[in-house]
């Protein structure tokens, strides 16, 4: 496997401009001769599909949901960053770049991050022009807030539903192209394999989730915008349908999978209630702007929060990190919550995993109405789920798996190690390094989809003149047969246990041994448990129903089978990365004060894994990261 990042030469601020000039163009009259497949319709997929159709390409777009508008980008609450400096508070493209490289704990590619920061300003322009109703000031200009520990106000937002509003902008642009006949849309359709012909990605195999029909689709290039793999952990803030299948199928066809162990655990989610729990709900990070995190100072204190006097509370983030306090980055806040709960100071009963997020001070300062104006919809959501009123009693929160920084390896053109296969949004290994900053995921998805991929895919198409391939090609026929055989095998499972029960078990293994805190011993144990669980899955799972109808259990079984293989790649990556950085914390590698200890001398690289067969240790390749502009430094939030 060759890893050529294809980073353009020249000073960082000129790389993207220079690259845009150097890339080959497709003649406008020729664009209609090219077919492009886009899988996934979240921010990255919908924006890419719409933009490529506007340029003139023929786009075929797929999603597993019943409508492209429902992709999980829709659930993002907080906001989207952009280096507009509208607040005149010292922001700049360079500062956003700097913050993102540093926040990612120096495990991202500088050139990509700079481009992301540069493009961030165009995204806001585009979204406003589409009619995205961002929050505004009384004078009519856009409002901003500080978010996720940033020292400038660069986050644009639309109440607590920025993701939905941005996605509706991209979805409407996509629907416009569907109406114009430039995009053909296939909802309730799942990609189950990638087809590679003569070393190039030339199409996909799908299954129609309503009829069960397995079909081949040929194209000149394939784009995966299929999101992250957080659901490997079973409980996460992801939607129930989110899965790794498309990415994992591409990995099995030869695409390198990079840094899977960089998973983000979000510090403020509603804690787990019972074994029936099906997902975890995020409470926006913006709550930490006004809420104070605390637990009782002494273990086993079962008094109600209001009965615990100030002196007997431990505002542990404010205590440990006096300059950032409750606004420390996500990985630091999450780990700190784990430590106090592991110490027996969880607030939801003995042995519980929950801490308080308390708004009493904020209500005293702003009044209940003031707090409601800022967080009303979040407070309502919390009350609906828990039955507790957070205006009266502190919220209980605990970290949960939220976002995955790892993903398919891509070069500067967002192309994977398989020529023609491009990967965008959360699905690629990304610009966020080992830890994503708040309000940066929406920015990256839209940067990739609106402004990067539509250029770089043209360069690929113009520089690889290829023979036409149809779905009659033997590679399609062979892949179709494999997909059908796997579907049949899943349908033949008639054991006694539900697929979900295996998924839960896998989730617990990954959460316990490859979650917020990892050890060599635990990861080694997980690498023994996962293959054994996978073997039991194929022997004991039950898949009801047939393959010719809407069958959610069959869909789920295929996705869980892939997670059961992918979980091993995740643990291998965590095991070989003998350092702590960002969301990856290895207990063996910490300072005396319990902070993450990065090892730049030995681990300043991206780990790229190459498939070697089911149950085989994948082959490790490395992309070294060099830092010319942001000086390698230890993150310090004290």
């Amino acid at each position, binding site marked *: 496997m060759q890893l050529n990042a294809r980073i353009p030469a020249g000073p960082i601020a000129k790389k993207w401009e220079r690259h845009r000039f150097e890339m080959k163009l497709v003649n406008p009259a020729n664009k209609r001769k090219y077919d492009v497949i886009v899988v996934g319709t979240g921010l990255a997929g919908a924006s890419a599909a719409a*933009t490529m159709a*506007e340029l003139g390409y023929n786009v075929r777009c797929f999603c597993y*949901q*019943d*409508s492209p*508008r*429902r992709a*999980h980008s829709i*659930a993002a609450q907080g906001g989207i960053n952009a280096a507009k400096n*509208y607040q005149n508070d010292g922001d700049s493209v360079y500062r956003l770049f700097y913050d993102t490289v540093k926040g990612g704990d120096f495990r991202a590619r500088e050139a990509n991050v700079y481009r992301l920061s540069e493009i961030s300003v165009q995204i*806001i*322009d*585009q979204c406003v022009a*589409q*009619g995205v*109703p*961002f*929050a*505004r000031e*009384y*004078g*009519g*200009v*856009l409002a901003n807030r500080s978010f996720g520990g940033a020292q400038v106000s660069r986050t644009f937002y*639309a*109440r607590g*539903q920025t993701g*939905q*509003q941005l996605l*509706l902008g991209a*979805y*409407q*642009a996509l629907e*416009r192209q569907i*109406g114009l006949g430039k995009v053909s849309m296939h*909802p309730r359709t799942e990609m189950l394999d990638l087809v590679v012909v003569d070393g190039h990605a030339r199409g996909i195999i799908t299954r129609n989730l*309503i009829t069960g029909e397995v079909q081949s689709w040929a194209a000149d290039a394939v784009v995966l915008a299929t999101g992250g793999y957080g659901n490997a952990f079973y409980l996460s803030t992801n*939607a*129930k349908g989110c899965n790794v299948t498309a990415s994992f199928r591409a990995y099995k066809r030869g695409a390198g999978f990079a840094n899977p162990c960089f998973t983000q655990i979000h510090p403020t989610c509603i804690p787990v*209630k*019972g074994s*029936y729990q*099906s997902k975890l*709900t995020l409470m926006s990070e913006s709550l930490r702007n006004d809420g104070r995190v605390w637990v009782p100072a002494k273990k086993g204190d079962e008094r109600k929060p209001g009965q615990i006097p100030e002196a007997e509370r431990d505002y542990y983030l404010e205590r440990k990190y006096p300059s950032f306090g409750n606004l420390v980055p996500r990985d630091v806040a999450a780990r700190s919550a784990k430590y106090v709960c592991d110490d027996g100071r969880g607030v939801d009963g003995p042995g519980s995993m929950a801490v308080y997020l308390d708004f009493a001070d904020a209500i005293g300062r702003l009044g209940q109405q003031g707090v409601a104006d800022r967080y009303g919809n979040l407070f*309502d959501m919390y009350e*609906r*789920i*828990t*039955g507790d009123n957070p205006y009266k009693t502190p919220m209980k929160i605990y970290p949960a798996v939220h976002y995955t920084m790892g993903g398919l390896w891509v070069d500067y053109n967002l192309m994977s190690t398989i020529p023609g296969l491009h990967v965008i949004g959360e699905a690629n290994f990304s610009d966020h390094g080992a830890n994503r900053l708040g309000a940066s995921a929406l920015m990256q998805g839209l940067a990739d989809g*609106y*402004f990067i991929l539509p250029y770089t895919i043209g360069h690929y198409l113009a520089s690889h003149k290829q023979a036409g391939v149809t779905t009659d090609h033997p590679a399609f026929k062979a892949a179709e047969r494999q997909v059908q055989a796997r579907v049949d095998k899943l349908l033949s499972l008639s054991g006694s*246990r*539900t697929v*979900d029960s295996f998924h839960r078990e896998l989730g617990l293994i990954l959460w316990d041994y490859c979650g917020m805190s990892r050890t060599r011993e635990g990861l080694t144990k997980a690498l023994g448990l996962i293959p054994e669980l996978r073997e039991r899955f194929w022997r004991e799972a*039950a898949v*009801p129903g047939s393959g010719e*109808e*809407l069958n*959610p*259990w069959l869909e789920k079984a295929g996705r869980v089978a892939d997670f059961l293989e992918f979980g091993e790649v995740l643990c291998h990556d965590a095991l070989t990365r003998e350092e702590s950085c960002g969301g990856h914390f290895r207990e063996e590698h910490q300072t005396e004060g319990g902070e993450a200890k990065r090892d730049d001398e030995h681990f300043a690289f991206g780990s790229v894994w190459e498939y070697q067969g089911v149950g085989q240790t994948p082959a490790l390749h490395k992309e070294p990261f060099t830092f010319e502009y942001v000086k390698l430094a230890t993150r310090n939030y004290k």
Partner: protein
Amino acid sequence: MAKKTMNLTLHVWRQSAPDRPGRLVSYKVQNVSPDMSFLEMLDVVNEGIIEGTIKDAGGHGPIVFDHDCREGICGMCSMVINGEAHGPREATTTCQLHMREFTDGDEIYIEPWRASAFPIIKDLAVDRTSFDRIVAAGGYVSVNTGSAPDANAIPIGKREADEAMDYAACIGCGACVASCPNASAMLFVGAKVGHLVKLPQGQVERKTRVLKMVEQMDAEGFGSCTNHGECSRACPKEIGLDAIMLLNREYVAATLSSVD
């Protein structure tokens, strides 16, 4: 301290295919925790059916229903619970409805969205692609990527922006259609027209947009509004009936003036 659990009887609409007859099938469910979401309760029922601990009455297998984000924003979940779209709690999607809204011994009727423009696929899952086609007909601002002016070039009053946001909050679930005796989609269409008409960016295509969207809405077979107001009451995002007034106003204005 464990909370008291409930025993319930569910009557669930089972239908194997769009063109097959359906019927209500009853299931007994025990030990339901009040902290469960409604969909988690159905998950438990389905696991019980698969593992044989809950009687699979009629041999229909586990119950098919649509769901995805389970946090009230994707708009995929869609059930009529005891005659109300998304169930008894106001401003709440089915996935955010929790079992503490019910009491021990309750009988709960669960049915799909019913409208000819939302054909049933299986059990509780329906086809809502008609909504997408309405948006494709005109529910957008025609602005290609790259041609936007600076985001602050056109000031928008806070009030207008907030009103646009109120309409834009629609999640496209279809509860409005499901709860309307005429299966009208006017709240959905009004919300999109309202979102874009409140903003300067939406002015250029103001007339063509409303005409095309309404034409598509009619072509899909949705009914017309006769002022029952059930749509707004069922809406999990509390879109007001004024969206329908706005839609009527915009439509009449567009019809009366010449459109190129």
